[in-house]
């Protein structure tokens, strides 16, 4: 248990360092002069000129040697100081917290909705394996998986916002704005996870131990609750861990489509305005979410599977 936490903690530190270094190197190589980009972000597109750029350069010390900037940044990182945004002048940590809140809200809601869809659909399909419902859910899942995630979002916008006028199209101003992005992301996730649930549940239903528990005299319900649920949730949770990477990718697309003020949107925007501290902050935050979610998966597996506890 301690080892588990320690390993993830080490990974988190590694993520911070490697992402920081990587983004730093990559962004040093970005085309265009940095001070012009920053000036454009600060003073409006029509006010970019040499004077504004000079002011920015002097203020931020961008003419220091590269290694010095990198060293400073590493020192700051160790003190948990991600610096100030080059564009807004606000502390990156502050902005990250704001974006993080929205991203977690979206990712959390999407995960919950996707489980609400995937678990009943997958279980029902496994129960009636190869029946009409199983085939239908397979077809829907294959159909959804064959779309870029933004097409799912656009289709939902067309239906719920434009035709039915039930939900807002984009932006964030209250819980109603969460519905469509969360459902889009959830559908894309459930398309895959419902099949995983179906697969692992039917595996369990066909397993020798499930049959044996029935032969012992347990009813189907008892056998399912006592033996089926825990055993089939283990591969599902492990899969969720693998799916996390695609969730984060989906977040970038969905946030962009729905103008959702989260980390993915922030990252894309920061890359565009070449805001090095923001890019590092956003990428590190996304990386840390990734590590954190993996930790949750680890802990869940740990809770479900007594074998791992024995091993520890």
């Amino acid at each position: 248990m301690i080892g588990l936490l320690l390993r993830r903690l080490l990974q988190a530190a590694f993520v911070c360092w490697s992402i920081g270094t990587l983004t730093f190197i990559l962004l040093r190589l970005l085309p265009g002069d940095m001070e012009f980009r920053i000036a454009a972000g600060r003073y409006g597109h029509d006010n970019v000129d040499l004077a504004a750029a000079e002011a920015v350069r002097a203020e931020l010390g961008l003419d220091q040697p590269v290694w010095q900037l990198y060293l400073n940044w590493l020192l700051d990182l160790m003190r948990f100081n991600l610096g100030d945004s080059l564009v807004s002048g606000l502390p990156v940590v502050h902005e990250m917290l704001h974006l993080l809140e929205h991203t977690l809200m979206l990712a959390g809601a999407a995960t919950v909705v996707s489980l609400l869809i995937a678990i009943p659909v997958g279980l029902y399909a496994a129960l009636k394996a190869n029946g009409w419902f199983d085939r239908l859910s397979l077809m829907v899942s294959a159909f959804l998986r064959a779309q870029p995630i933004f097409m799912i979002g656009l289709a939902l916008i067309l239906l719920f916002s434009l035709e039915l006028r039930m939900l807002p199209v984009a932006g964030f101003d209250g819980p109603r704005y969460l519905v469509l992005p969360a459902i889009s992301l959830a559908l894309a996730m459930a398309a895959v996870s419902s099949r995983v649930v179906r697969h692992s549940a039917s595996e369990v239903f066909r397993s020798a131990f499930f049959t044996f528990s029935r032969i012992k005299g347990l009813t189907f319900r008892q056998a399912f609750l006592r033996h089926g649920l825990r055993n089939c949730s283990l591969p599902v949770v492990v899969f969720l861990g693998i799916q996390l990477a695609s969730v984060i990718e989906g977040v970038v697309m969905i946030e962009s489509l729905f103008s959702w003020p989260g980390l993915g949107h922030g990252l894309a925007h920061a890359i565009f305005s070449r805001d090095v501290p923001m890019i590092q902050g956003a990428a590190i935050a996304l990386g840390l979410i990734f590590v954190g979610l993996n930790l949750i998966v680890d802990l869940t597996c740990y809770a479900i599977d007594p074998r791992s506890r024995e091993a520890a």
Partner: protein
Amino acid sequence: MKLQVFLGAFALAVGLIACTPNQNPDVLTLGGPFEFTSQDPARDGYVYTRLQIAESLLEVNDNGELLPGLAQTWDMSPNGLTWRFSLRENVRFHDGTPLTAEAVVNALNMALRKPGVIQSAAIESVNVEDALTVAVHLRAPYRRLGAVMAHYSTAILSPASYREDANVAWMQGTGPYKLVGFDPPHRIQATRFEEYWGKQATIPNVVYLTGHRAESRALQVMAGQTDIIYTLDPASLNLLRRQDNVRVYSDTIPRTIQIKVNASHPFMAERNTRLAMSLSLDRQGLSEKIIRVPGGEANQLVPPSLAEWHINDLPPIKQDIVRARGLLAEEGWLPGADGILERDGKRFQVSLITYADRPELYVVATAIQAQLRAIGIDVDVSIVNSSGIASGHHDGSLELALVARNYGNIADPLGLLIADYGNHGNGDWGGMGWHNDELPAVLEQLKSERDPVLYREKAQRAAHILAEEIPVIPVLFYTQQTAVSSRVQGFSFDPYERNYRLSEMSFAQP
């Protein structure tokens, strides 16, 4: 069993959401592409003047004439070195403190500490003359100081708004709406300021939401989620025009889509080549089919709304491929095997950069690329950040750039034209590698010209030089496209984009 329960719950949830209408009767929702990161007028001030949270000393009417704002009257000393602004009485900031000369001096001094248009005037000092009079002392006469005082970056905030470092902690303006919610970069909330000095706003609450994708902005207004969407993309116009509950307003604003040309580039140094490029453009097609607003063809840089600077009798530039090819042939450019022009073994291959902040630029660039290809010029289009224009100008890497230039930025384009052509005909957003000494001289004289007739004459001369020499190729006069929900009444558009005039709007009774 489980499944049915779940489906039932889902249907119920959807049903509940469906019962909530997309429109709230007390809130006016606005959408636009502009992201904001701070409350500092020098940075994102336009957002706050548009939402009528902050106000400046002077205002501008649709014809570009200055009107009283927070200053009721103003005058200039005979030598042009001192300007006096007398402030309106009984004006209160949102924090309850009264508007005084001291507060205004403080605000202007804060603006002076940052880059911006205010730096174009050689201001020596700003002083308190008496409780309601402010004096601005200049080192050199500057005729257009009034326009500067109407710019968003000189908006007046209460002294409590500023932190030590001149940044703004929380904006306390004087407008009919006051800031209540600030979530950069996507949401601003404002409510009616009950102690406003002028006419009270009708709609109690305003929300501005950033939507950085043009296509989703168009959908927002169709879905009834947003009442007004500023800066639409051309592609969505036909769709929006067909909606019953949406009206589309097309307003010409003093912004021009133009091609910045690197005249020091060996291919484009000759006027004939630039003229040929200009003649290759199907401006009518661009206007009708691409921008989808007929009549936007530009034959010169400054649009008609800035009458002093616009040449009324200049004929339109018609597409003339044959003549364009002829001009290019005169310069030694002959088509090669694949139709691309060649001279001295070099292919006519150039890059064109543009930026994504204005949705139509990208589409127009794509069309221009094909039209230049038709006369044998191979253009490689790339999208950059708008800052790439200025940096490309300075490092000399820029070849062609498609830009939208706002000539109404400060009510008179003089300052802008000096910035664009003041340096021997060159500037970040204007000429590049072009050499002309007459134009900068004319512009310099205009700075201190006080006779309106002479001013007009010289302005016209400047416009003629630009039309004749074509350092920059005019393409289209920009049209601001705004989609407005049918429940909004009293909508009008400020061609200078300073003020969204929200306080004059109201909702139709359902």
